[in-house]
């Protein structure tokens, strides 16, 4: 059976599984729809959070970026895991104690203002929308490459699948589907990595294998000596092409720091992750599900650098100096997607890789490396199929979580809380479904005309989250004196500064180079500066305005103690501050 047949089989089987789970766990009330009736166990919630988290960017782009960026690419690894430490100790337990449905709702109540709520819901929609378009794009690439559908049909198919189970099942459906998806995603990532690790270094544990020594088979594959350390081989291969050594860092330290910090803080401020902690029964469950989530995520994230090393070494070794007529099959297959290119510049009929763009003949989009890795390493077709199913699971699960945030922002925060407070529970449930439908349609339209690569689009969402939600939520929990005016001004200043900087350097004047950046900080890393600005504005404006009313200060005090003042319940019967 060939790779395409295997891929159809595995993808269709995994989709059938997701549908079955979605039907079994359909949402019946608004509390079901938004927070799965707060009945999810912390381990399951951790697993669902992990899948919600691991997106097309984690699955497809991260190891590819790392393969290109070397040690500096670890900004993504550390940024996207370190944020969970912030979540676990600074946000999750307190937001769970507050016990409502959405992030804009917390902002609106804590800052006793519908204006703050509306600013927050606009931020939530902007962030989630940026992110979801990247996911659908990822779905399109996978379907186009592995199933032979066009990218357009691929994107549409992905949108329909997400709709069916997100719109129907809400948070409850999504949670159980994500648990199933975790298994598919992690298998799709680890199985090929284990195969390659075994072949190259004989170690069945890829994170250890990347530091191992070459087996005779691995040495023959990479054109090196048996017993040589893999990391030394990859360093040597990259230096031979004129790049710095793979394991060294060459970006300015300050920029790497800024990108890492932005991704960490942004992770903690992403609404689709924060709301996952509203689904567990107790406050201590919020802490432990953050811990489980990080453990489940770490399984993929510690493997990613190994995949990067394997992909970097094997792509160089199988291409460099080889006759173009004998190019591996995967190269031709990927060329059709436009993400891989070969131009014989010196006309010698051989493929030449080089750090010098004028001499380099083979272009590999980083988004391709993880998906192509099993083919590069000549693994059996069922492994290729597993990778395709895993990438689809990663993209779809994240898209579903994001659509839910958009739906809840519209139906709960805008319609129910601001415009029609007397809407019935049933009415709200249908409003949420309708909002999810509209959001999917809009995101599909954007994904068909995407502004950039998956990781690039997604990385900017983190800057926006870091500079808007994180400061306003953190100040809301830890500083009773933070006021309505401070929050609105801080959130607006943060997101406008960060969004403006990204637009300026990425969209309006992309030709401006690093010498024009603020302190040499790239648009991917500017979110942390925006966050510091937001904190400063919240502090100054709050001190200049009247202290929050007593009831709000009492609300903040109550967040600090797990049992105290009010029992934690379904949330629907609790007082709302206006």
């Amino acid at each position: 059976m060939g790779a395409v047949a295997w891929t159809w089989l595995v993808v269709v089987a995994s989709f059938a599984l997701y549908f079955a789970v979605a039907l079994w766990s359909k949402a019946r009330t608004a509390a079901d729809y938004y927070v799965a009736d707060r009945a999810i166990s912390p381990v399951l919630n951790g697993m669902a959070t992990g899948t919600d988290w691991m997106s097309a960017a984690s699955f497809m782009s991260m190891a590819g970026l790392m393969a290109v960026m070397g040690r500096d690419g670890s900004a993504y690894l550390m940024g996207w895991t370190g944020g969970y430490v912030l979540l676990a100790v600074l946000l999750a337990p307190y937001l769970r104690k507050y016990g409502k449905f959405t992030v804009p709702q917390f902002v609106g109540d804590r800052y006793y203002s519908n204006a703050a709520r509306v600013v927050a819901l606009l931020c939530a929609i902007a962030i989630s929308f940026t992110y979801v378009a990247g996911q659908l794009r990822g779905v399109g690439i996978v379907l186009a490459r592995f199933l032979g559908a066009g990218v357009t049909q691929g994107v549409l198919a992905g949108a329909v699948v997400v709709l069916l189970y997100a719109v129907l099942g809400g948070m409850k459906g999504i949670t159980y589907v994500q648990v199933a998806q975790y298994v598919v995603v992690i298998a799709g990532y680890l199985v090929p990595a284990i195969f390659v690790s075994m072949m190259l270094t004989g170690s069945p544990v890829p994170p250890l294998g990347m530091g191992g020594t070459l087996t005779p088979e691995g040495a023959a594959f990479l054109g090196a000596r048996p017993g040589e350390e893999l990391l030394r081989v990859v360093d040597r291969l990259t230096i031979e092409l004129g790049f710095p050594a793979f394991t060294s860092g060459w970006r300015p330290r300050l920029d790497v720091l800024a990108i890492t910090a932005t991704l960490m803080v942004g992770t903690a401020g992403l609404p689709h992750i924060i709301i996952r902690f509203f689904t567990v029964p107790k406050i201590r469950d919020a802490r432990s599900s953050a811990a489980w989530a990080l453990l489940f995520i770490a399984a993929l994230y510690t493997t990613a650098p190994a995949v990067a090393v394997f992909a970097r070494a094997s792509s160089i070794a199988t291409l460099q100096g080889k006759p173009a007529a004998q190019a591996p099959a995967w190269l031709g297959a990927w060329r059709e997607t436009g993400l891989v290119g070969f131009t014989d510049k010196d006309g010698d009929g051989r493929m030449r890789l080089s750090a010098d763009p004028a001499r380099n003949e083979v272009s590999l989009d980083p988004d391709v490396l993880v998906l192509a890795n099993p083919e590069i390493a000549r693994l059996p077709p069922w492994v290729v199929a597993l990778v395709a199913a895993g990438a689809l699971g990663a993209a779809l699960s994240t898209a579903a979580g994001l659509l839910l945030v958009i739906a809840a922002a519209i139906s709960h925060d805008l319609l129910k809380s601001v415009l029609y407070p007397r809407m019935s529970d049933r009415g709200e449930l249908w409003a949420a479904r309708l909002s999810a439908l509209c959001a999917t349609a809009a995101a599909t339209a954007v994904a068909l005309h995407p502004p950039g690569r998956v990781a690039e689009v997604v990385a900017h969402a983190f800057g926006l989250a870091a500079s808007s939600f994180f400061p306003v939520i953190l100040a809301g929990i830890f500083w009773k004196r933070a006021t309505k005016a401070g929050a609105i001004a801080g959130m607006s200043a943060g997101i406008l500064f960060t969004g403006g900087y990204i637009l300026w350097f990425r969209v309006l004047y992309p030709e401006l180079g690093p010498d024009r950046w603020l302190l040499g900080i790239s648009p991917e890393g500017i979110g942390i500066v925006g966050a510091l600005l937001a904190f400063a504005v919240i502090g100054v404006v709050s001190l200049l305005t009247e202290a929050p009313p007593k009831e709000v200060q009492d609300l903040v005090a109550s967040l600090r103690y797990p049992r105290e003042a009010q029992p934690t319940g379904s949330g629907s019967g609790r007082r709302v501050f206006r």
Partner: protein
Amino acid sequence: MTPERQRAYWRRNLAYIGVLLSIWASVSYGAAIVFADALDAVRVLGFPLGFWFATQGSILVFVVLVFVYVKLMNDLDRKFGVYER
């Protein structure tokens, strides 16, 4: 809880957060970025040490930190009689 006990509970929580986040920052920003080049001079099990912290060590430390926080806070909740059943 009396107001004094509440303040003690909160101060202890803040102290835990302070210690854990100091470790968090020194591993990721320190060992994996600022001091990575210096640590790379040492090779452990085939890895330059700075590179290992950047790609593996920091993530493993993060996992340990969050589980330690869970344990510390559950103990603190029990000590102050606010553990949720």
